[in-house]
């Protein structure tokens, strides 16, 4: 979403073209740090929040429906929903097994089962049937007065996941044994079908066909009288919801992750693994067609209304609307984590939620209060905002607000006054920007783009190192007048950097450039030829400048300085003579100290020896070497002195040496 202007051409059309062109021309070629947020597809828009607006799969935001949240007391979750013939809606809840009735906007407790969860509801005539957890009990509740009686406790059953009534008997999809029961009015229950799966999670009735979806393997069965057949074996491991109407079967099949391992740790992580949701439409001929998929969240509820299939989600709290033609829109987006039940048909469409429990009434799609709000867009650094463009139809007003926290809070600015047309963003500079579009009836928002200039960030030179010769006198480097200088830089905004190097001798004040201005160093190292400067102790300064990416007024620089280091490009001198069979002499160096003394006899190997005071610590070292070990005779004796910078000098002398040469 955060894209460089260089790499992406604007595709805005019509009225916005001229504006965009102006923007492109107005920007200097070097101003690559001007960036923009572009939001122009369904994925981008879906990351934001919708209130009365919908995101269509073609990447358009349009006015949608309004929602009104109705509380459910202290209930933990609503899980099941059923609509009565008079328009009343009944909602099954947990964790106290209560049923609520909604009439108009009035929600009131209606019945209590004493169980954990009312997991399924069905209505036949004046009776509401409630399936529950965890004892496999089904209750019959009079719609008139809410009087409740236990209809049956199903054998070998703990969960009643789904109920449907075909006008003659009640059917219950159950777990954990995966049995489908037919229950007569007197409570007599018979197993119609044993799926040999873990659970029958969902039921749907369409004419004479009863469909049952299972978990373990995501299979949908068709039960017609005593005949049972597999409709389809879907990918995934759970058919969580079904609906059927007019020969069309809608299937929410999920691939749920394995449950987290059970540990004894007291720290309970709440991070959940995502399920993957798939929505299928199965035709009466048994042809399964995938209409929608989401790898980030599973689907919890499904309902066919006309030629639209609505599917509720289990992580982001959304309802998607998918047409038989596969055109899809994000229909509703709420704060609750899960949409658990849908009753979107009829004059008073509603849906219910879990985590936390609520009933939502869905209002007319009039668009008067439809808004789409982007997520907080991150400029990376504090940024100055430029123009805001959008592409769409109809009357759209855009507001913005900005702040420096990733989640908008009270430290953020208020929403700006609405912009009716493209123009400069009125929110103050900040790191994050949020965009809100207010849509009116018939309006369509297709894309929006916000330009910004992030505050230039100073690069910092954190370390300058010189491959200083002489730092280890025990192992002098090879003599060379080329010094390698390296430095480290932190570069928060990744601007292109140019480096300038300067030096001065220790004790001097004036920095001298190491190279001419037309030499452009962009790598964080440089090799310096020191042959043109006198020997001595020097310091190097490295300047990092982001002038390549920023105009002069905005350019930021930083300098770093090396430790003092020795430049010694001159050889030492050696004086040597034979005196009474001993090799005596002096080695001198201008910068000192002498690092190594060696001698060789008659062109043989160089052998180390020490000066008179046994310490190689001065610029002038005297030596006196006893040659008694040599065979008496004439020898050519060479002495090589090496200074700390690796410079070496050799002197030779020829004469008598050996054990019998008298010492004067």
């Amino acid at each position, binding site marked *: 979403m955060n894209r460089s202007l260089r790499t992406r051409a604007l595709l805005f059309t019509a009225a916005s073209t001229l504006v965009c062109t102006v923007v492109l021309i107005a920007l200097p070629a070097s101003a690559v740090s001007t960036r923009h947020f572009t939001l122009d597809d369904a994925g981008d828009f879906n990351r934001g929040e919708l209130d009365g607006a919908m995101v269509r799969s073609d990447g358009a935001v349009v006015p949608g429906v309004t929602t009104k949240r109705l509380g459910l007391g202290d209930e*933990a*979750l609503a*899980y099941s929903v059923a609509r009565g013939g008079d328009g009343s809606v009944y909602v099954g809840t*947990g*964790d106290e097994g209560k049923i609520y009735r909604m009439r108009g906007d009035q929600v009131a407790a209606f019945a209590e089962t004493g*169980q*954990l*969860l009312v*997991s399924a509801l069905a209505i036949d005539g004046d009776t509401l049937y409630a399936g529950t*957890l*965890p004892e496999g009990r089904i209750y019959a509740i009079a719609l008139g007065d809410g009087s409740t009686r236990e209809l049956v406790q199903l054998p070998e059953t*703990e*969960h009643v*996941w789904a109920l449907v009534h075909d006008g003659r008997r009640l059917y219950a999809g159950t*777990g*954990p*044994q*995966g049995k489908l029961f037919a229950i007569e009015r007197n409570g007599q229950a018979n197993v119609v079908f044993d799926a*040999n*799966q*873990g*659970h029958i*999670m969902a039921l749907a009735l369409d004419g004479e066909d009863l469909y049952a979806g299972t*978990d*373990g393997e995501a299979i949908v069965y068709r039960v017609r009288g005593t005949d049972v057949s597999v409709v389809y074996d879907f990918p995934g*491991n*759970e058919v*969580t919801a079904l609906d059927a109407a007019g020969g069309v079967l809608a299937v929410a099949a*999920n691939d*749920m*992750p*394995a*449950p*987290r391992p*059970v540990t004894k740790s007291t720290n*309970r992580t*709440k991070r*959940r693994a995502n*399920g993957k949701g798939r929505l299928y439409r199965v035709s009466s001929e048994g042809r399964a067609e995938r209409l929608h998929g989401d790898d980030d969240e*599973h689907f*919890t509820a499904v309902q066919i209304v006309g030629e639209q299939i609505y599917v509720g989600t*289990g992580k982001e709290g959304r309802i998607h609307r998918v047409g038989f033609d596969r055109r899809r829109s994000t229909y509703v987006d709420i704060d609750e*984590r*899960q949409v*658990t039940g849908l009753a979107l048909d009829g004059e008073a469409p509603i849906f219910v939620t*879990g*985590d*936390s429990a609520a009933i939502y009434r869905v209002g007319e799609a009039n668009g008067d209060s439809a808004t789409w709000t982007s997520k907080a867009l991150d400029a990376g650094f504090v940024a100055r905002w430029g123009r805001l463009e959008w592409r769409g139809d109809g009357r759209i007003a855009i507001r913005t607000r900005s702040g420096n926290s990733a989640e908008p809070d009270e430290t953020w600015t208020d929403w700006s006054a609405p912009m009716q047309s493209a123009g400069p963003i009125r929110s103050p500079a900040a790191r994050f920007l949020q965009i809100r579009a207010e849509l009116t009836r018939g309006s369509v928002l297709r894309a929006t783009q916000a330009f910004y200039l992030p505050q230039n960030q100073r690069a910092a030179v954190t370390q300058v190192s010189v491959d200083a010769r002489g730092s280890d006198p025990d192992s002098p480097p090879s003599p060379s007048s080329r010094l390698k200088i390296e430095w480290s830089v932190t570069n928060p905004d990744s601007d292109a950097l140019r480096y300038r190097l300067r030096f001065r001798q220790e004790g001097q004040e004036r920095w001298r450039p190491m190279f001419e201005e037309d030499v452009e160093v962009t790598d964080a190292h440089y090799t310096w030829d020191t042959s043109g400067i006198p020997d001595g102790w020097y310091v190097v300064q490295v300047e990092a400048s982001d002038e390549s990416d920023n105009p002069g007024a905005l350019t930021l620089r930083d300098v770093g300085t090396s430790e003092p280091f020795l430049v010694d490009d001159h050889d030492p001198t050696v004086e040597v003579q034979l005196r009474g069979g001993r090799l005596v002499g002096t080695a001198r160096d201008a910068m000192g100290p002498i690092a190594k003394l060696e001698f060789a006899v008659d062109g043989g190997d160089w052998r180390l020896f020490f000066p008179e005071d046994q310490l190689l610590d001065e610029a002038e070292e005297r030596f006196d070497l006893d040659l008694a070990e040599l065979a008496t005779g004439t020898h050519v004796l060479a002495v090589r002195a090496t200074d700390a910078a690796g410079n070496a000098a050799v002197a030779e002398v020829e004469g008598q040496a050996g054990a019998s040469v008298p010492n004067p």
Partner: protein
Amino acid sequence: MRLHLLRGLPFAAALLTAGAIAQQGPSTISVDDIRPGMTGYGLTVFRGTEPERFDVEVIDVLHGFRPDQDLILIRTPHPRLEQTKAVGGMSGSPIYIDGKLAGAYAYGWPFGMEPIAGVTPISNMLHEMDRPYRPDSFPGAEVLTTRRMRPGGQARRRSGRHLAGLPAYRGEPTNAFAPMRAHVERRPPVSEHQMRPAATPIMLGGFTDEVATLLGNELEPMGWVPLQGGGGRRRQPAANTETRPRFVDGGAIGVQLVRGDVSATAIGTVTHVGNGHRLVGFGHPMMNAGEIGLPTSTARVLHFLASVARSFKIAEAEEPLGTLVHDRQAAIVVDTDLQPATIPMRIKINGLVAPPKDEWNVELASHRLLTPMLLFSTLANALKTSSSDQTDVMFTARYTVTIEGMDPITLSDRGYMGAGPGDVRALSHLRLFDLMEIAYGNAFEPSRLTRVDLELDVTFGDDTLTIVEATVPANEVDPGSTVDVRLRLRRYDESEVFRTIPVRIPERLAGEDVKIEINAGSRVGVEHAVPRNIQDLIRRVREDRYDATAVVAELKMPSRGLRFPGHVVRSLPRSALDALDRDSGTTERPFVTQVRQATDLGQVVLGDAALELTVRQRPRRR
């Protein structure tokens, strides 16, 4: 009464002084006025019931020894105390300096070489004597006179629970010693170089050596030293206040933990009897339990025993009198006008041939930490006394526990004692102790244990079957099939028998490798709902375990369950688990669903075994 006490007193003058102090209110000396070298005397009972003097000499005052409490260091150059050094049971002996009450003999050093003690200043103790207590602190207690219980400073507050400093009990299986051990673990360790309260001797009467040792091991960390003493004469509290025994300054006092056919009494000394119904003693806490409600009694000292390891008074309880109402840093406070509720307990042992005694009746002090341990000790003692046989014993414990305001709860536990009736450990795990924790430590409402009746049916002989091995005909099985698991079981005589138990393989395990654990029923725990009230806790105890004669096959399923208040839900499909295991809610950590199948073998089962099977993805065609 006083004339009666005076007869035969060797130190009548000293007692008159003590009596005078009691009548007039103490003439006290402040710590600020005490200087090194000052002399005085103390009062304690060396023998019988009458206090005698011993000389004291002030060494110095240790300031800030405890929070807001100094300590007066004294030397006690008494011939007897030169021998005994610090003496258990002397705690509370009043110390007078310049004829004025300075405090209570209370602290000493273990293994001290000199007769040096620490004295708790009387001002700290008198402060405790005046401290009110909450009227609900001693449920079931009876006020002996017409006075009303003095309401405490927090009387208007809602009744609080008395959990004895432990977390509320939420239904985990417990045993007789768990509460006390949990309490001891919470106490900071004390270095041997630290000054510590003079040990409190607990005089045990009617206990066997083994049970006394067992009890001693549990009580020692509290600074209590169980000693074999006597049971004391059994007397009921006198209703007539004029004829009731009295406490005197320097007299012995007992805190009666058990009385009846066996007894356990903590012995200390009265420091000062106030003008009203209260007295202070000990000079240090007994358990530092605050408002505690233990029964107290007068006591008689039989001997003042010198010991290199630890000197102490040998004593026994005399007349029940009063209630220990405050157990505080500086003193215990006794209200002599309050008779605490105790727990009558009856134990009947059946099945032994001509036991010396087959029915035991005791009254137990009521306290979360103490009562389970005392009850177990009494039960163990009854059994050990009745039979010292060291042969295998099967037992059935049938008991009725009464909690105030509730119907009596009757349970029955079967068990096995491998080394005869003397091997009493199995009895410490009776569910009786779970019920006691519910009564004392439930999180929901104040409740009170009022009675325990227990009958123990004992059968000599080993009627157990120990699981040695479990095998199946084939390690690859069909989902939905029933597998015959063949158990090799060992009887007590080492002979082996084989039994076959059916284990159904759930279809849901298709394609899985499954481990089947075969366990003795008594070892299998089940997941319980989060309790919502005391009834839930009791229900949980009732349903806690499989019968000891059952063998249980446990299969771990690839699904999870959740515990909720009042409900447990198992085998949840993944989407339902995701919905029910909410970020906001009261659910607890998910657990692995286990399918358990029990088969009764008719004999007590011990041991365990395990099998690993592969479940085919689909059943084979037949």
